[in-house]
């Protein structure tokens, strides 16, 4: 493998993105919703209705769960429930880089084909693995940057709008694990899936539709947290991250075998 060739194509991918800011829109929208929802539920609605979260019988479980964590005992009941809600919605924030990665990756191979720039690219000594690696990284790095930016905004919003100390709930090992282990791995899964699919179809939307499958388990995780009090602990995060890492390794191998230069050059019109 040639690092120079991977870096060359990666550089091109990043330069190309600068001219397509619209492609970040799905990721930005998902991020904005993920940031806004806990603020709406934990801060705005109680302020508008005048009802305290800690008075709600529905949220007592959350309060109890949170009080089991030593540092959270310092928080008053209202702040503890706000912390719970901000943490629960972090899983939703994971969807932001996933959505961004899907948009970026779906265009990766198909975009080259549509611009008719794939054939000159394939005429260089670049190998299929190098090409796919550069494509995956070209989508992954911006998605990761978006994830970091959204997380920074989320922490800032919690610090400014929620009760004192609530933002610390976003800086626990569990939160960091969700955002920086599970999130990137889920993004990687979405985008390797999208790259694999985009090697075989002619339409970016087809690639996006198939890659959206990654969103389903994440959404299920969020629903389970909110409805049945399922807690995503650090071991669970590590387990999910490990499983996704294995899946990603398999998907990259699959992508290399699916990327048939001949079919792409001769059958795509």
């Amino acid at each position, binding site marked *: 493998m040639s690092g120079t060739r991977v870096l060359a194509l990666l550089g*091109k991918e990043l*330069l190309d993105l600068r*001219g397509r800011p619209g492609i970040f829109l799905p990721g930005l929208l998902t991020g904005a919703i993920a940031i806004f929802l806990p603020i709406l539920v934990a801060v705005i609605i109680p302020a508008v209705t005048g009802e305290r979260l800690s008075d709600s019988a529905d949220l007592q479980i959350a309060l109890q769960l949170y009080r089991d964590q030593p540092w959270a005992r310092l928080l008053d009941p209202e702040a503890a429930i706000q912390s719970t809600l901000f943490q629960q919605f972090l899983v939703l924030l994971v969807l932001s880089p996933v959505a961004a990665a899907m948009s970026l990756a779906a265009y990766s191979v198909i975009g080259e084909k549509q*611009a008719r*720039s794939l054939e000159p690219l394939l*005429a260089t000594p670049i190998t299929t693995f190098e090409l796919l690696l550069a494509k995956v990284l070209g989508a992954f790095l911006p998605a990761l940057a978006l994830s970091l930016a959204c997380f920074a905004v989320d922490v800032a919003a919690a610090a400014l709008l929620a009760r004192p100390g609530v933002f610390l709930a976003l800086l626990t090992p569990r939160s960091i694990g969700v955002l920086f282990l599970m999130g990137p791995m889920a993004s990687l899964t979405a985008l390797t899936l999208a790259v694999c699919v985009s090697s075989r179809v002619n339409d970016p939307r087809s690639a996006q539709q198939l890659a959206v499958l990654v969103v389903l388990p994440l959404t299920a995780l969020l629903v389970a947290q909110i409805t049945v009090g399922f807690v995503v602990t650090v071991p669970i995060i590590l387990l999910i991250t490990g499983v996704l890492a294995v899946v990603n390794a398999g998907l990259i191998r699959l992508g290399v075998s699916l990327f048939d*230069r001949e079919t792409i050059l001769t059958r795509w019109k």
Partner: protein
Amino acid sequence: MLAADALTKTFDARVAVEGVTFELAAGEIFALVGPNGAGKTTTLRMLAGLIAPSSGSVRFRGEPMAGAAAALRAAIGFLTEAPGLWDRLTVQQNLRVHARLQGLPKPQQAVDAAMDLFGVRDRAGEPTAVLSKGLRQRVALARTLLHDPPIVLLDEPTSGLDPESARDVRELVLRLRHERRAVLISTHNLDEVDRLADRVALLNTRLVALDSPDSLRARAFGSRVRITLSSASTRYVDAVRQAGARDVREEGHRLSIGLEPEGAQLVPALVRALVQAGADVEAVEREEASLEQVYLRLMKDGGS
């Protein structure tokens, strides 16, 4: 330099190229001509190591290239039918990415040299999307030659270009020959082939004919001489027949006379016979069929 040995390519049941054999020598311009769907681009792609032949092989400097397609691609500059530039990137960025993909030790130096050679230095910072078709083609050519390849494959290099840009491309192709590179051009422009090519391959899934343009002419139409007279030619037909001409056509004030092989010696005798018969001879010239006529004839006859 580069050889195709019985190259065959099938896509499912369809045969795109069958048993094509030829060699491309250093310092040669070789033209591949044929109708749409004749297998020209497929042949180029096999030669460039982009797709594998179903049977047959490609040899580079005598060595079979099976399994070494990446090495073959490094030795070849392939201008694809469409320029295939990254539209949002500038001219310089496009070239620099390709210079690095080719593993050049001093990519910026190579890019600067290529931009100077193709006269696009003043547009270096502009996105290629805003360039005219001619300029885009120049950038694509610069990209093709960036790594100084000994073999250059050009697929429709002047297609859709204005006359001035097309002339620039033809001059470049001649320069490549002068630099002892092996150049293969696939084109529909027969006038261009006539001006540039040392050898022409007519392809219609299989090789229909392969030779120099002059040899193909002789093969299709034989050799003819045209004699222009000051008056109607009808009354001089008998005179030239008596002098040995067998295939004589009257064309107003002109006589078109077919010559047998080695028949050039007959021309002075024909002129003498005409003068003795009272004709005023204004011009004697070799009659050349256009390559288009040759192409149509050979394609129709299937090369026989």
